[in-house]
């Protein structure tokens, strides 16, 4: 066992922290919340040049050949900085599934584009039921000649409005078991019949209503096997839950540090409020949530990188972090007082993101049910 960062991880987080401290000030974060695209293309290009967009992809596709665990280290820094933009959508929801299940020509086509920052991808999974279950997949894909016609409404699709390609989760067969008959398609976002409407969300991130009306997609754009899509979705959800957890752990750490500093500086009753025992105990409890969240994230991410079975560990991590981050952000507000819930302070950025992160790819209740199943209940 060696829980220290490897040399490469050490370099990665340090350069990420420096880069983001420079290039992603909170003024940019706030600007991008209001911006329609929601990300600065110049920054996206720079991230490609740094090799971030290709981090987990093999070198033969112009990637960095790093592991999922390394990606987690980077995502943590992104969460700390509240980096806006389609990184998680493109790399985790788009790129990793293509790497895992794409045919060689699909990989050759998409992965280098992702690595070079030339293609933004996302995954269209959830629908108006707003649940992550197979029965909710109603968007249909019906064969027509060599093509499929996809129709339906996808909701809460991250970054669909700027995506070049969308991995669309569709139903290709009605079966008694809702987990069968689901197929994933790589859909060109410029196809006729596609429209997106931006949703106004709590974290100011860009999620969309995506309407597909008889969108024609060639059969060759199926990702993986026809009718086998739900197994793939479950895998993608594991990656996504951990990736989001990493962002949340980064945010959690930042909130902790902000709050400790504030408690040391804020004077009331002629002394720093951090000298009061009640504040000290709040902060002590927060430190437990922060540190336990990180080690639980790393454990699950390491197991995933090693190819070990880790459904339980992933749900332990996402289930725990979802609530731990909310607890920390909530307590931080209590300690910061009125300034914390104004737009003039950074804390509110994190508080809103903590809630959004909690909901993304399974909240604590969702993951507790997974753990319950793993317990054999």
């Amino acid at each position: 066992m060696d829980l220290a960062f490897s040399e490469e991880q050490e370099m990665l987080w340090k350069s990420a922290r420096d880069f983001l401290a420079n290039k992603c000030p909170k003024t940019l974060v706030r600007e991008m919340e209001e911006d329609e695209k929601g990300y600065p293309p110049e920054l996206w290009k720079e991230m490609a040049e740094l090799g971030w967009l290709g981090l987990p992809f093999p070198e033969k596709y112009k990637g960095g050949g790093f592991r999922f665990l390394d990606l987690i280290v980077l995502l943590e820094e992104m969460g700390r900085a509240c980096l806006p933009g389609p990184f998680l959508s493109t790399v985790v929801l788009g790129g990793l599934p293509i790497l895992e299940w794409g045919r060689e020509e699909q990989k050759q086509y998409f992965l280098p584009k992702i690595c070079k920052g030339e293609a933004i991808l996302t995954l269209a999974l959830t629908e108006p039921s707003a649940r992550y279950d197979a029965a909710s997949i109603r968007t249909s894909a019906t064969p027509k000649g060599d093509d499929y016609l996809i129709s339906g409404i996808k909701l809460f699709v991250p970054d669909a409005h700027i995506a070049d390609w969308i991995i669309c989760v569709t139903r290709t067969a009605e079966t008694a078991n809702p987990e069968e008959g689901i197929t994933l398609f790589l859909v060109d976002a410029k196809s006729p019949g596609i429209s997106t409407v931006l949703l106004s969300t709590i974290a100011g991130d860009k999620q969309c209503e995506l309407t597909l009306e008889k969108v024609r997609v060639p059969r060759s754009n199926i990702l993986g096997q026809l009718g086998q899509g739900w197994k793939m979705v479950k895998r993608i959800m594991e990656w996504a839950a951990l990736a989001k957890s990493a962002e949340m752990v980064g945010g959690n750490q930042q909130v902790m540090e902000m709050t400790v500093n504030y408690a040391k500086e804020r004077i009331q009753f002629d002394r720093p409020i951090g000298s009061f025992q009640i504040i000290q105990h709040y902060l002590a409890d927060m430190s437990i949530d922060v540190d336990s969240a990180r080690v639980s994230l790393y454990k699950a991410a390491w197991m995933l990188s090693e190819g070990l079975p880790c459904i339980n560990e992933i749900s332990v991590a996402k289930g725990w972090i979802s609530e731990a981050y909310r607890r920390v952000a909530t307590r931080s507000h209590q300690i910061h007082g009125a300034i914390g819930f104004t737009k003039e302070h950074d804390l509110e950025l994190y508080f809103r993101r903590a809630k959004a992160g909690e909901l993304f790819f399974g909240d604590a209740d969702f993951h507790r049910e997974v753990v319950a199943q793993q317990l054999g209940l």
Partner: protein
Amino acid sequence: MDFLISNEEKAFRQEVRDFIQEVLPPDWLGVDPGPEEEEREEVYHLSMEIWRKLGAKGWIGLSWPKEYGGQEDPAKDWILKEELIYHGVPGMDIAAVQGDLILAFGTKEQKNKFIPPITRGEVKYAIGMSEPNVGSDMFALQLKAVEEADCYVLNGQKTWNSGIHRADWCVVYARTDPNAPKKHLGISVFVIDPKSPGITMRQITQMTGLRAFCEVFYDNVRVPKENLLGEKNKGKDVSMHAFAIERSYGLVILHNARRYFEQLVQYCKETYVNGQPLAKDPLIRNRLAEMAIEIEVGRNMGERINWMISQNMLTVLPSCQNKIHGASVAQKVSNLGMQILGLYGQLDEKSKWVQLGGRMRHIYLSSRAWSLAGGTSEMSRNIIAGRYGLGLPS
């Protein structure tokens, strides 16, 4: 970064599990670690038997120097403790921890005298810290020790002195300099024989019905000078070391609770209400999963601490975090167990109607101690906030 467990560690864990299976009676539901449950006669006899078997295996003091019967292997020592605790095996005595102190502060003669009987599993120890007016404010202790020509003479009182009525030795903290400028400067530590003339004790019955706590009175008790542990008036150093080696206490609590939790899960799978197992009830599933997550998170924290120890890193902060978390988890397990058992939870182990051997009722009562013993959760929070942790101002 990796969380790899070495083959050597896996093999040793298996060896320990085989040993445990050999020494435990069938259908053993387990007991809490520590002296309290040794107040049950059958548990006491089993604990003495297992203590000696552990000694015969050479497994007591695995982290200790080879010349004192150890293997200088803290990782193995922890694996052994974790397995014993998880399986609810009685026997690992407080002596295993007090030996650490003797090795750190004892003279050569003291080590030679005290350590071999510990590693042979022959002696039991107790710790005398608390007094009627001394709880978390430990350095305010008042038990007086006056130096005479050949001995120290002790007068005063200790309390909550778990298991001393059965112990061969007790490590006692006493005041040797009442005029010291600061109260923590006048303390010394003694290894005393609880059967010394002048010592009387009264067992105090705990809420569980067990009587491990003792109130101990010292009336002109003569303790030989060679039983002074560490330097005179430097007992603070010994006590800080003692707190530091209690750093795994959070994990002890957690692994003990893990066993009870698994019994509860099994109960929910097997118990039918209205034609379906409790395990299918959405509320119960959610609550059990919540506990499972908190236990796993605590284990993850523990892996980090053990790794930090292996790197000789300071573990004050994570140990205090784990102590708080472990106690909280264990108390929640006990509460959840009582909730799920409903009316049955009230019964003691002798009732023919009792479920899960009455263990849930027992830990519901005994777990009050887990956020108090070894430093209260509040003291742990103070330490986290302080200079070894968050560096908040005092």
